[in-house]
């Protein structure tokens, strides 16, 4: 492994100074499950690793009076999927946190890290997009907010500027009669990278029969995770039915621009988008009606996890 220095700042300001220092060649370490592999394999170079886990704010989960939730960027996945508030309010997010790597990876990996690694196949980003998460970014010029959907700009690239890093993800208050879901397709049943992934959110009417609003986002089928806006808008006012889910899936395929690589051929990935969106919508609707709230026992029979 290449040689580097290590710093574990106790405050955001301290971290910014380290990152923004002229000539500094620094990288953020949160869970380390991506960056340490990349440094070891020489895919990225750095002179300084800045461990942000010692900054209290980055490890906090807080719910405000208005019901909105703020998730520290370095909170590891295992704390996310075992947090009742996130499980109840933002199930698509906890779905994704439960399937990133195995338990050992979930013991370390954070959503801030998953976001900043900016892989097109990142499982949590479509979930963050459909849950309307906002990325709180701190930097030399103070703080700014960027919607999750605008965060990634290209494979491995994002809006962060020199000296900036993500400190938290904030979520609007959960809505009544709403449900969300993230699923992906992989050849194995765990420990795999999405061939395609779909995050969805929807709100039903009081009767639970009609879709009032929906959001759909996709993984691994474009240079960045993408929102399928047309499909989501089409769903508004449609009956909550298998036909609607299938049609929305077909519409969602239009934003898919995948490549053929070791994880699967182009046409197959486009096809999967239709399948995954339809399946995810079905579960999200069930959740909106109050069913299957527990991401450890989702409708698709994925095995139950640790309580």
């Amino acid at each position, binding site marked *: 492994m290449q040689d580097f220095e290590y710093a574990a700042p106790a405050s955001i300001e301290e971290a910014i100074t380290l990152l923004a220092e002229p000539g500094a060649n620094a990288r953020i370490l949160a869970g380390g499950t991506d960056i340490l592999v990349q440094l070891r394999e020489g895919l990225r170079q750095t002179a300084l690793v800045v461990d942000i886990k010692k900054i209290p704010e980055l490890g906090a989960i807080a719910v405000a009076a208005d019901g909105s939730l703020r998730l520290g960027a370095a909170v590891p996945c295992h704390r996310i999927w075992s947090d009742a508030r996130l499980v109840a309010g933002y199930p698509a997010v906890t779905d994704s946190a439960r399937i990133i790597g195995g338990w050992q990876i979930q013991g370390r990996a954070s959503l801030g890290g998953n976001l900043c690694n900016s892989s097109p196949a990142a499982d949590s980003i479509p979930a963050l997009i459909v849950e309307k998460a906002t990325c709180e970014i701190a930097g030399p010029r103070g703080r700014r907010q960027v919607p999750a959907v605008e965060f990634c700009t290209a494979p491995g690239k994002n809006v962060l500027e020199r000296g900036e890093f993500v400190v938290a993800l904030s979520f609007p208050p959960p809505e009544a009669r709403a449900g969300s879901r993230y699923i992906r397709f992989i050849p194995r049943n765990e420990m795999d990278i999405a061939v395609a992934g779909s995050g969805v959110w929807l709100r039903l009417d009081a009767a639970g029969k009609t879709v009032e609003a929906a959001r759909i986002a996709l993984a691994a089928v474009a240079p960045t995770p993408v929102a399928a806006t047309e499909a989501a808008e089409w769903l508004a006012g449609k009956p909550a039915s298998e036909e609607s889910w299938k049609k929305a899936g077909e519409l969602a395929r239009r934003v898919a621009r995948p490549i053929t690589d070791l994880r699967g051929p182009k046409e197959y990935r486009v096809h999967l988008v239709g399948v995954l969106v339809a399946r995810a919508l079905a579960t999200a609707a069930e959740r909106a009606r109050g069913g299957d709230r527990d991401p450890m026992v989702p409708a698709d029979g994925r095995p139950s996890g*640790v309580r």
Partner: protein
Amino acid sequence: MAKKRHVTTTINGEAAEFLCEPRQSLLEVLRDTLGLTGSKEGCNNGNCGACTVLLDGVPVDSCLVLAVEVEGAQIITVEGLASEGHLHPLQQCFLEGAALQCGICTPGFLVTAKALLDHDPAPSERQIRFELAGNICRCTGYDKIVRAVQAAGRKLQEHQREQQRT
């Protein structure tokens, strides 16, 4: 070269101190500096679980943890499972159930399975398979591993019941 850091931590219940380079992984330090070679290197990038240890009670791949990060942490390795000369029920059940062949993945499985049974001594087969998916075994086909974890869970429950009685 980056200068070595002094780290104070607790490993298998005992206070431990070591010097390490920032780039050294916890796995490297456990094995090469502290002589705890029970944790194995199978892939060195978080895909096989042979190096699994408990970091403050949570299973992690020690190949993806920097040794400098564990300042003040509590670490459990496979060497810490047996106590006062007694094997942990998991170790006992792995032996009785022939749940190992070459044995290189066994330490990682034992550590992850301990975390699982600590949470839930009666996991379902699917739950065991799901939580152990981060540990790869190439020899056994997993059958006897899953059965051994179930058997160990039953043993632990018996122990708990006995303790409640006394």
